[in-house]
């Protein structure tokens, strides 16, 4: 799948923001006054920035409110409804803590749970897609939820919980990659099932439907940069999870949090880039793009017309 910067930023930032708000709502940090202002501000800021980034992915952002209507069937709509509900319900709790030193624990807990449900809904947008076997697995929501909680506790949780959740994040990331590398083969998709011609023999593409590019290839059959996948996985694991766990476990919180947060964000951006770039969509079977393969050698067309490369 095409690793769109808007989607990578959206999922990383909104995951961190809703994770932080969940931790604050569930009362894991008794902040009031300016501290609370900074923490809730960071939570709303990251979640809001994520939602704005996601709007850049839309062809018609002016119609975005329609996305609140189909929550009965659509995970994307559920995400929008849950995001709006959790941000609205969190506001009185946040205002109480910031301005009156009187948080509303009951309301905060409900809003915190809704924040986690929002992150789950984001993950389910991807995990529901049978067309992308790598995503269609329980490790997808596991990664999204542990990432949100690890980021949230890093900023506003007890250090022990933050370190434990960061280690758990390393575990879910590793499980997602391990399972993901086998998912396509396990699902049993092939050019033969895609064309229904398997009973006749082996199938390979002779001529694509057009000589130029198209939306499907750009959006879903994107094959860039998988060359460095292993290195990026190590960076994601070390910077996104293990280094922050070590920092928060060993250093006093005020010293540990800034570098730990910076490393966690870099690692999560790498992990989320891989999440999209490594995901193989079954439509690639109609275009003879074997899964996990390096990009094909340039075609005659591309050699003669280098601007198409």
């Amino acid at each position, binding site marked *: *799948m095409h690793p769109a910067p808007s989607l990578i930023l959206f999922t990383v930032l909104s995951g961190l923001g809703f994770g932080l708000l969940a931790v604050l709502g569930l009362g894991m940090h008794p902040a009031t006054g300016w501290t609370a202002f900074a923490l809730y501000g960071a939570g709303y800021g990251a979640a809001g920035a994520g939602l704005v980034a996601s709007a850049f*992915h*839309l*062809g*018609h*952002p002016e*119609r*975005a409110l*329609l*996305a609140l*209507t*189909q929550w*009965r*069937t*659509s*995970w*994307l*709509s559920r995400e*929008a409804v849950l995001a709006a509900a959790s941000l609205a319900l969190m506001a009185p709790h946040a205002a109480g803590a910031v301005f009156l030193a009187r948080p509303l624990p009951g309301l905060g807990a409900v809003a915190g749970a809704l924040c986690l449900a929002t992150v789950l809904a984001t993950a389910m*947008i991807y995990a*529901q*897609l*049978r*067309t992308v076997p790598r995503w269609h697995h329980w490790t997808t929501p596991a990664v999204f939820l542990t990432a949100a909680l690890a980021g949230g506790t890093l900023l506003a949780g007890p250090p022990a919980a933050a370190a434990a959740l960061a280690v758990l994040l390393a575990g879910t990331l590793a499980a997602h990659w391990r399972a993901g590398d086998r998912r396509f083969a396990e*699902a*049993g*998709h092939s*050019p033969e*099932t*895609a*064309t*229904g*011609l398997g*009973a*006749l*023999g*082996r*199938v*390979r*593409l*002779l*001529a*694509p*439907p*057009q000589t*130029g*590019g*198209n*939306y*499907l290839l750009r*959006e*879903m059959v994107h094959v860039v940069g998988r060359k460095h996948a292993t290195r990026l996985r190590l960076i994601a694991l070390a910077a996104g999870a293990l280094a922050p766990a070590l920092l928060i476990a060993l250093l006093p919180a005020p010293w540990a949090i800034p570098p730990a947060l910076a490393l966690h964000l870099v690692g999560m951006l790498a992990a989320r880039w891989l999440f999209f770039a490594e995901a193989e*969509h*079954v*439509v690639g079977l*109609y*275009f003879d793009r074997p899964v996990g393969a390096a990009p094909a050698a340039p075609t005659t067309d591309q050699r003669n*017309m280098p*601007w*198409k490369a």
Partner: protein
Amino acid sequence: MTALPPSTGKKLGLVIDLDTCVGCHACVVSCKEWNSQSQASPLADLDAYGPAPEGAFLNRVHSFEVTPPEGPPVVVHFPRSCLHCEDAPCVTVCPTGASWKRAEDGIVLVNEAACIGCGLCAWACPYGAREMDGAERVMKKCTLCVDRIHNETLPEPDRVPACVKSCPAGARHFGDLGDPGSAVSRLVAARGGVDLMPEQGTKPVNKYLPPRPRDRLGGFSDESPLARYLDPVTDGAGGFLGWLDRSLGRLGGRP
């Protein structure tokens, strides 16, 4: 609403005969033409006269090579468009209600005025049936020419999808696949029509008829069956050709 109807009265769809498709792309062109003039917005092309032209299409023809365990490979032309699935994942993922499946005939459509262009429906489709329109920034897909098939201002024979009407090989058939007695259903039964990627659980309405077994010319060899007609036939020729034959033969070397 993006909930799928529990059942549809009819299951209108296409049956595509891979045995007779000659890969001429007439269906691609007629589909593009009809859907550029009849819909809420044209099917846009970008950079149409520039170095990298690109456009939205609702129907595309791939050509595959199928190599059987024994015998020569076979070329199969393969038109690919929306299969109007009974269990259409593209409909239920839509957050705005722009995507829907009609209860009366099962056609899957997009309401362009409600589409936010998020692209999730295209991700959910295993068959690559949906394409984002680069100019309108909304999702486009095959409508089964809903504005032809029910259009009483058109003469009766024209009330079929443009791709079916234009196919010069008669490889595309349109009808109600929910009615076991319909011509298309009987065709599917007779020819062993198949679903594409059945393991995706989408229950496609459209069916594909696999190519019939090819005739064999007494075994497969590298020699052309025409080779014996190319043997020299100048033996015993008279007149000028005979003189030329004898003169050239005297020059020696290989014939």
